[in-house]
């Protein structure tokens, strides 16, 4: 087990190395001159040269890469935003909390809705509830998150006035974005829960439990669900990464000041140091999430061997 985790961690190093190179090269490969973006297009040639020298663009690329890595790893310095001149790492830390709160609450909704609807669909198979559940999930998977968010905003914020339309501050600001974000994942969880429960219901031990005259409620709760929900939990964990992806869009809809809207704003204004840092951060997040999911597979299902 420990060996497996270590091996996976070591396996992450080359991937991380490639990602740092990609994110480092961002400034150099993308169109637009960083000095012009930073200091404005109208500076004269002389100032341009001085600034070019001062920012260290004269050095060979490997030297610059080395400096970039040292700054990042040793000093935790991700550079400064071109646009606001603010320290990128500070801003990232500040916004990380917002995104974390949003995704965690979304995951809560997704599991709550997804698991309960999935169980109902499976236990009342082929009933009208099952049909309705299946039709809504395939519809839900076809609805763009941002449009769903806009519709929620129209109905509950604009027409009914129950919630604020956008921004942050109170718990009420969080409700619509988190439901929007959780809704797509909820549909995936419904499908997964349903098939998982159905699969377990076909197992021999369920038949045995029924045969010995166990009440249906007990069969479902202590024989079926216990076993069926284990893979669901793992799958939900895997969806966390996709929630972070969805957060980029949903944050933009509700003007939620998290990492996602930071990323989009930076891309639109070509604020490369910020894009660099965020790409690195997002990549790291996914690698960690995937690792955790892989490890949890082992805990939940001892049949899996790590070799």
């Amino acid at each position, binding site marked *: 087990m420990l060996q497996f985790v270590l091996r996976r961690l070591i396996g992450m190093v080359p991937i991380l190395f490639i990602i740092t190179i990609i994110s480092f090269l961002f400034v150099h490969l993308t169109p637009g001159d960083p000095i012009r973006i930073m200091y404005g297009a109208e500076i004269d040639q002389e100032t341009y040269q001085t600034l070019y020298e001062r920012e260290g663009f004269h050095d060979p690329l490997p030297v610059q890469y080395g400096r970039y890595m040292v700054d990042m790893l040793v000093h935790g310095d991700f550079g400064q935003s071109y646009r606001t001149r603010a320290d990128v790492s500070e801003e990232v830390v500040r916004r990380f909390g917002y995104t974390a709160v949003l995704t965690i609450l979304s995951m809560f909704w997704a599991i709550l809705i997804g698991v309960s609807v999935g169980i109902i669909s499976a236990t009342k198979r082929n009933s009208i509830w099952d049909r309705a559940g299946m039709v809504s999930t395939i519809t839900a998977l076809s609805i763009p998150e*941002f449009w769903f968010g806009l519709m929620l905003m129209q109905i509950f914020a604009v027409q009914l006035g129950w919630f604020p339309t956008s921004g942050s501050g109170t718990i009420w600001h969080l409700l619509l974005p988190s439901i929007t974000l959780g809704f797509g994942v909820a549909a995936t969880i419904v499908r997964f829960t349903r098939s998982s429960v159905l699969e377990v219901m076909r197992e021999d031990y369920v038949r045995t439990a029924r045969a010995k005259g166990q009440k249906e409620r007990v069969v479902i709760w202590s024989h079926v669900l216990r076993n069926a929900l284990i893979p669901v939990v793992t799958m939900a964990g895997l969806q966390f990464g996709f929630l972070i992806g969805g957060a980029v869009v949903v944050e933009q809809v509700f003007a939620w000041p998290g990492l996602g809207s930071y990323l989009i704003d930076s891309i639109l204004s070509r604020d490369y140091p910020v894009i660099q840092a965020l790409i690195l951060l997002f990549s790291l997040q996914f690698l960690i999430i995937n690792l955790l999911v892989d490890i949890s597979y082992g805990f939940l299902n001892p049949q899996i061997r790590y070799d």
Partner: protein
Amino acid sequence: MKQNEAKPYSPFRAFLAKFLKQKMAVVAFAVVVAIMFVGIFGSFFAPYDPHRPVTAQYPEKGIDLDQLTNTSVVLEGVMSDGTTVEGSELTRVQVESENRRIASVRQSQRGINVNANTSGFTNATVEAGEVSGVFQVVVEGESQFEGREAVVSRLEPVHPEGVLNEGEEFQIDVTAVLTDGTEITDRGEIHELALRLYETEEEEDTSGFNAPASNAEAIEGLHFQSLNEEVAAVDENGIVTITGEGEGIILVQTGPVKSAVHVQAGGTAEPVLAYLTISEPNVTLTDIYKHQPPSSVHLFGTDHQNRDIFSRVIHGTQDTLLIGFVSVAIGAFLGTVLGLLAGFYGRWVDSLVTRMTDVLLAFPGILLAIAVIAFLGAGITNIIMAVAVFTVPVFIRIVRGSTLALKEMTYVEASRSIGVKDPVIIFRHIFPGTLSVVLVYLTMRIGVAILIGAALSFLGLGGDITAPEWGSMLSAAKDNSGTVFHATFFPGLAIVITVLSFNIFGDGLRDALDPKLKE
């Protein structure tokens, strides 16, 4: 199965029979075909040019601008003896809109002409000499009509007719007719309503017209006032006492609405104008310059720049389908080639390709696409590239999987044993076997590609934010039409219907081609 004895077995016919059994999928397929038709020919039958405001296009469409923004209401005067006079015969008529930005009013031959300017609601006052009435104008459009309530349109005083003598007393009863048509007869109720309606707006309401000097003092609730104190006196409850001979007029007023009660004490006199009636006390018009609501002229309404949303949605079909088809085609092509190579050759080719696939699949599609856009810059071509990039690993994985299985087939081994070259084996013997899986995923990924493409252009990464593309339409609607439902509803509905059709069609295709493929 019996049919197969007569005809040779056709895999295509078997597939068709299976597919046609799934009614949902058949319907979805029909919708997909319709959407593709709209995508190709949509620009020919879209009713309006999607790039220009509709108001600029009305002349060429033969739509009269005035007809949409103008209407007339008929004005009539009711005399104290109960006879009515046409509006054109009334003298000293003045009409005034409380908020001219929303609607302007003027007297015309037929009555009163109302002209809508921008969305909202306002009250308009009509005055003829001493008496006046009010009507409400609602201009539909962007604005919410919060705080809109019916106001008093006219007051109909009821009083004894005929000649009265000095010292006599009588009570004036009033019926208030509101702009929404309700009638209130109870004096106390009218008083309460008037107190509420005109409490804060008192200054505004009375300053607009040529009121007698006495009107300058605050008028609260239901108010009675005698203009000829030597003939008649009136108290606050509307009880009139005749004090002398002659003719007198008592004004009944709530806010800007005034009626006259003609008091005749001795002698004869001509009847005077008692109150005004307006044929339509609640006029509804449409703001045609911005955010027109859905109507027969504009099925989906118009947007913040007054462009026809229906036409824009139809034009946008092309861009949206283009993003979906081209990106998936590119992704499927590259993915299939790499998957075939990885599956067929194995070893280092396989491990390299698989490693790459794993890394790419670890990231959620939308973020991968955003990262690609960050590299390439905004623009519709780059959106296609970005969506293609995250489609590639999906196809690599499935094609590699079926290649691995097909490679072990006896016929592959046979062709290899007779010395058929690798490219020929791959193309002639293995690729056709993967085709059904590729076809299914092709359909299913188009839905996803359209979703991601729309999300990217919603985020403003599509470059041209004015383009009639569903995602950018929603983005523009979010920024400019926050309170308008139809502007955000219809483009999104188009996305949902398209993606849903592709998904259901893909599901049906999968079940018909290979039931084992179920995820």
